[in-house]
């Protein structure tokens, strides 16, 4: 069937801010799909509130609206842009839900917009719990005994008929939000209450618990002609009970015979055929480990995290093909972009093994519950490819960048055997390390399997790795042993460590002397059956190399940013991809190294070559040995890439752009102080320390409060404000849990207005696209602050100083390319907080709202072009005539037990944009985009620390005027009442009911303003409990007075008529 002629202009909905359960995979899928649509001559109108994405670039779509993803906004854009079609299956659950609401309300039909890709009926039958169950029953496909309930009472009644434990799955939520397993009535009531609240349609599925069964997924595709194929199947190493997003996943399945494989494949195809899917779809199964019994867990009629993984694992571009199918093509008409010989109507065959490991945020949220359940907690993931499972697992572990590069880490060795056996029952992110330790002690496979339900095949593979550890420890390192260790991907440093007598360098030399080097194999979708063109490679040892050396053009190595984590998000992928494109435009050959399957940078047609590899010194060195690049760029890949600089230089790869010693000068306290002295730029007084004693000494000299932070980190990891000696000790202890090569900085904490700039320096001149100011005063991490462009509250004098300081610093640090500087403006003076001679998280946002292609210009500057030759006047660029506000977005509700109050350590997972003619409207849109949709019940709670009370009074007055009923605990209430606010006093948590907790759990509160006292993180304190419970009951919770003021401003100027800004026209 050829392309439909009735589709000319397609609206695509993105997935919005990055939150747990909905991450960069939708930028990858959306970008690929938009490019696929444009390839077919479509006009593409894109809506996504997330400015950090590549899909919101003007190169990707014709019209780009970075607007809040609400039905009202979409309606207004549809009226303005008049698309003839809407493709809702690319924006994750968020996009799908919006598409459904628009379709169900009749709005689409009214405005002549067709839902393409998959029909509303199909979506309904796949997503609505009852409709899905009916469909499965009609097909005779088994599902676990279940019932959709709308009340807790019905849930209890049904569970009593099927017995505990039961799984609870709220309908229409992201990443299984609000779901869980209940083992008894107390747990049932707790989870069910929460689930009902989170579900858009107030529905929760109560289901027979099939925990412990094998969890298997199939990625399938179907076209309008009914042709169906399977792209890939995947097996979760963690059996049913852990969300697939938090599971270690292997592709293809390893423990299924052809009978089981085909049984589930046939089932998946029957299901998508019955549902009438046109596009991609994910079907999840639970397979009984000791019979052919299976249950369909769920069907996702859209591209998903799993489909991104399947695409990267196989080379089959699911989103691209899904977009073509939406336009009417059939699978046998769409060419396979990898082989260029075959068509999309075939099934990829792998001749390698793929392992995905989730990146969990427990290093950021030390108080959060580590247990993995049916509610996803991972912020990102890594993938690795090898021709054996052990090797793929080892590569994936070191790709995580969690200071872990073998199964030896996360030391369980101090436990007694009994403690260890107990630890095995704990399902968390450390489970494989625990299993490894149990195997080291000789635990039987049966014991481990009986406790964990993990298939023995996987346990044996872990055992093989443990055996190798032992051999490396006990035997002399022979060439044969070294070969075998490398075959299963033991890194040189681990080999050296286990050997104990050799250094890493000696191991490497021994390898090189004996020709034990990495070879690269191609991912070609067809197990080498056809000649493939696509240079997408993975490393193996002991095999023939296939990667063709090229040296006809100058070659640049682009180092990616690895897994998405808090502090290093999709922004850095944006920068890596744009840098790659910029170098390509300049005629360079581009080589990308990255290991994140969710991103655009690991799409096979972004760079000339893609190496899907861990970002470690050794792995990158192997690539360098083969590719011999003319240079590497590290300034766009976040801290991951920066960390590789030293080694790259050591092995003779020139660093393009700012030199490593200048990067060091910005990070090294003493060197940096010298530069500040030379350039005469003030900063907060401070010192560098290694021990708690030194830290206390410096702190007392400066006077509390002080800011304590490790150097060479991103996202303010480990950064804290300390108010006394005790806190210093506590923070230093936490920081030093991770081995520190670099000193720790202790600075006087200045509370002022925080200003941020990103600038480009060509060696002579600088270009500042714009100055941003933060709504929150210093003390809250810049990534968690609301950021406003242009800076509208600072005067020209301050602006001039900032431009001047930026120029001085850029020059003093010999910056060539990007620089990011954070300043404090206080009492007419400007202080430097920190300087990062690299790309930052605000680059995509500022690029979009100023229309200045920052990364592109920076790349050109690195290559020697001058700012003046690029058509720009040096210095600060003219300010835009609208206001753009970047709003942080958090995923606290997914992380039980996480402390939500903001501070110097970054906690947000994503961001959204509010752009408008006025500050007020921009702010309103930004809050709306972040999901703050108020008012609802017009009731709020205020409980603030003493220092914040005067400001709280002003805020309270404004909310009172907005019609809010204000509740407060005793001292706050008194203060507000004295100030003339009619406020109701409530009891503290520890006091008798009704108290503040009853209010929160009553579901009638819109907002909690709670500013924490020091020493946060203590799980038993009132403040912590209030904040946690507020988040878990879906109440907006604000922990800084500045944010509260901004929200009041936003609500005072609430509107329903939005100014819509097409960012592509800026």
């Amino acid at each position, binding site marked *: 069937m050829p392309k439909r002629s009735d589709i000319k202009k397609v609206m695509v909905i993105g997935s919005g801010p990055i939150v747990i359960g909905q991450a960069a995979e939708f930028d990858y899928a959306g970008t690929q799909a938009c490019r696929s649509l444009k390839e077919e001559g479509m006009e593409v109108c894109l809506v996504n509130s997330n400015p950090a994405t590549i899909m919101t670039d003007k190169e990707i779509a014709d019209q780009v609206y970075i607007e809040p993803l609400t039905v009202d906004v979409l309606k207004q854009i549809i009226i303005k842009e008049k698309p003839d079609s809407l493709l809702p299956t690319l924006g994750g659950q968020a996009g799908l839900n919006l598409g459904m609401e628009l379709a169900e309300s009749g709005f689409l039909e009214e405005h002549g917009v067709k839902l393409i890709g998959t029909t509303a009926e199909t979506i309904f039958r796949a997503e609505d719990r009852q409709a899905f169950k009916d469909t499965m029953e009609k097909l005779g496909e088994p599902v676990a005994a279940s019932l959709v309930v709308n009340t807790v009472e019905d849930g209890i009644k049904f569970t009593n008929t099927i017995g505990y434990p039961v799984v609870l799955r709220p309908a229409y939520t992201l990443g299984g939000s609000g779901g869980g397993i209940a083992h008894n009535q107390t747990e049932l009531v707790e989870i069910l209450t929460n689930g009902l609240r989170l579900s858009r349609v107030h529905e929760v599925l109560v289901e027979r618990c099939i925990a412990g069964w094998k969890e298997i997924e199939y990625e399938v595709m179907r076209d309008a002609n009914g042709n169906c*194929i399977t792209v890939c199947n995947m097996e979760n190493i963690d059996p049913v009970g852990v969300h697939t997003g938090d599971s270690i996943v292997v592709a293809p399945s390893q423990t299924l015979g052809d009978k089981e494989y085909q049984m589930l494949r046939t089932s998946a195809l029957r299901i998508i055929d019955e549902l009438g899917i046109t596009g991609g779809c994910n079907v999840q199964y639970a397979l009984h480990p000791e019979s052919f019994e299976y249950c369909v867990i769920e069907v996702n009629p859209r591209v998903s995290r799993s489909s991104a993984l399947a695409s990267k694992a196989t080379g089959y571009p699911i989103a691209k093909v899904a977009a073509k199918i939406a336009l009417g093509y059939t699978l046998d008409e769409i060419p396979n972009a990898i082989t260029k010989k075959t068509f999309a109507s075939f099934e990829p065959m792998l001749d390698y093994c793929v392992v995905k490991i989730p990146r969990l945020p427990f290093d950021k949220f030390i108080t959060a519950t580590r247990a993995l359940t049916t509610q996803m907690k991972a912020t990102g993931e890594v993938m690795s490819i090898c021709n054996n499972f052990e090797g793929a697992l080892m590569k994936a572990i070191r790709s995580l960048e969690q200071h872990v590069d073998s199964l030896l880490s996360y030391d369980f060795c101090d436990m007694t055997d009994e403690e260890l056996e107990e630890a095995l029952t704990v399902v968390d992110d450390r489970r494989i390390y625990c299993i490894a330790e149990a195997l080291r002690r000789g635990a039987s496979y049966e014991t481990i399997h009986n406790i964990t339900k993990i298939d*023995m095949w996987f346990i044996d593979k872990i055992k093989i790795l443990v055996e190798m550890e032992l051999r490396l420890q006990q035997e002399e390192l022979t060439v044969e042993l070294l070969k075998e260790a490398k075959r299963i991907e033991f890194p040189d440093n681990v080999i050296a460590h286990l050997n104990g007598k050799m250094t890493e360098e000696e191991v490497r030399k021994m390898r090189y002397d004996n020709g034990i080097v990495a070879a690269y194999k191609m991912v070609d979708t067809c197990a080498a059956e056809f000649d493939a063109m696509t240079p997408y490679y993975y490393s193996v040892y002991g095999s023939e190399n296939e990667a063709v050396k090229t040296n006809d053009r100058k070659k640049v190595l682009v180092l990616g940013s690895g897994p998405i984590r808090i502090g290093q998000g999709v922004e850095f992928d944006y920068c890596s991809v744009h840098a790659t494109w910029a170098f390509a435009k300049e005629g360079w050959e581009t080589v990308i190294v990255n290991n994140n399957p969710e991103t655009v940078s690991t799409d096979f047609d972004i760079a000339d070559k893609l190496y899907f590899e861990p970002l470690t010194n050794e792995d990158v060195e192997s690539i360098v040995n083969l590719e011999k690049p003319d240079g590497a760029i590290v300034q766009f890949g976040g801290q991951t890439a920066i960390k590789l600089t030293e080694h790259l230089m050591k092995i003779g790869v020139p660093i393009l752009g700012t030199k490593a010693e200048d990067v060091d000068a910005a990070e090294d306290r003493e060197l940096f102080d010298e530069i500040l002295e030379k350039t005469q730029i003030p900063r907060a007084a401070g010192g560098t320390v290694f021990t708690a004693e030194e830290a206390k000494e410096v702190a007392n000299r400066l006077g509390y409060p002080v800011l304590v932070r490790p150097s060479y980190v991103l996202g303010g990891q480990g950064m804290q404000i300390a108010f006394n000696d005790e806190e210093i000790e506590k923070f230093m202890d936490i920081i030093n849990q991770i081995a520190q090569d670099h000193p720790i900085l202790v600075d006087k904490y200045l509370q002022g207005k925080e200003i941020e700039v990103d600038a480009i320096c060509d060696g002579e001149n600088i270009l500042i696209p714009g100055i941003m100011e933060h709504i929150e005063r210093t003390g809250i991490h810049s990534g968690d602050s609301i950021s406003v462009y242009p800076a509208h509250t600072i005067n020209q004098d301050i602006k001039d100083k900032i431009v001047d300081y930026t120029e001085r610093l850029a020059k003093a640090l010999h910056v060539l390319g990007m620089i990011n500087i954070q300043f404090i403006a206080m009492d007419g003076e400007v202080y430097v907080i920190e300087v990062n001679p690299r790309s930052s998280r605000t680059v995509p946002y500022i690029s979009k709202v100023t229309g200045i292609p920052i990364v592109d210009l920076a790349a050109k500057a690195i290559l020697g072009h001058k700012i003046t030759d690029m058509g720009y006047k040096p210095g600060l660029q003219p300010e835009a005539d609208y206001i753009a506000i970047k709003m942080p977005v958090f995923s606290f509700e997914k992380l039980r037990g996480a402390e939500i109050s903001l501070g110097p350590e970054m906690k947000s997972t994503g961001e959204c944009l509010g752009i408008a003619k006025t500050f007020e409207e921009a702010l309103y849109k930004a809050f709306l985009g972040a999901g703050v949709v108020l008012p609802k019940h017009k009731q709020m709670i205020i409980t603030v620390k003493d220092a914040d009370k005067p400001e709280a009074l002003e805020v309270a007055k404004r909310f009172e005027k907005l019609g809010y009923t204000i509740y407060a605990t005793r001292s706050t209430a008194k203060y507000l009442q004295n100030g003339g606010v009619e406020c109701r006093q409530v009891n503290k948590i520890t006091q008798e009911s009704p108290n503040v907790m009853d209010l929160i759990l009553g579901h009638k509160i819109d907002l909690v303003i709670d500013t924490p006292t020091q020493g946060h993180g203590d799980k038993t304190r009132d403040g912590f409990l209030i904040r946690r419970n507020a988040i878990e009951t879906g109440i907006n919770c604000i922990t800084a007075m500045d944010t509260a003021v901004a929200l009041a401003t936003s609500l005072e100027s609430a509107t329903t008529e939005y100014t819509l800004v097409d960012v592509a026209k800026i």
Partner: protein
Amino acid sequence: MKAFLILEDGTVFEGTSIGSTREVVSEIVFNTSMTGYLEVLTDPSYAGQAVCMTYPLIGNYGITDDMESSRPWPDGFIVRELSRIPSNFRCKGTIQDFLVKHNITGISGIDTRALTKILRDRGTMNGMITTNENYNFEEIKPKLTAYATGDVVSKVTCREKSVMKGNGKKVALLDFGAKKNIAKSLNDRGCEVTIYPAHTTAKEILAGNPDGIMLSNGPGDPKDCGPIIDEVKKLYDSEVPIFAICLGHQLMALANGLDTHKLKYGHRGGNHPVKDLETGKVYISSQNHGYVVDTDGLDEKIAVPAFVNVNDGTNEGLKYTGKNIFTVQFHPEACPGPQDSGYLFDRFIKMMGGEQ
């Protein structure tokens, strides 16, 4: 123990011996299925060949009942890595023991992808698996060049006729090396299946008064099956509906004056798209063949193409004009591989019931 795979063109792969250490010369082919190594091993169509699995991890679920015949047939089994332990609730043993028991030579630990690329680029070729470290290529070479699969059908076909009881249509299945699931697919649909040895005469088969005749898959070059082709022609001339798979499809074509030729490296795997030319629908099929029917200049009076391979455009099926006969190159019985084209057995049953 070390083992070597020596190809006709002089390429040598060094690996580890698995299974029997018997030295074998055979035709080296590759299969891209990710599951179903046991079905591959026991598919009689691999008689006379040594098969390389492109998926690197083999033996993960051990030996189960999933066998397509009573024993493994390939001369050799070539893998990247054999699983140290099998893990499956149905597992009855390991591949290692199975190969030894059936005296099948194997080699593991070689770069199977590199081997596959050689076969893809230079075409299927002969090779030897040996554990003799002191081999002399010049001595071996003539043996490799001289090797031909020959009349392997006679080797793999059943010795005696047998019957699978059923209450439905009576089907005569001519066993050229049939995979068990062909008879089972018919029997599951109620057919009574009488399985005949390959060299049974048309007369004897027709004397059984079947409602339909099923020509099975099988190994080797179809042109090595001269006498069988003559009998197939007689079956064509009868008015009994016929469905043929793989070798059966090729034999029917040869019986009607069509030609076959050897593909450069064949189709072996579970991911080949075939298009039903009547409906335009594409099915993912299980395939295992080195030869293909030429359809250039095909006389419409004899037959018309019914299926075509979406990848390379080769013929995948024929519908014989004026006859109740249709034949396919791929394997609707699956095992291993996708079950998508199983509907063809239903079509055959309808045809036996008088529907066209």
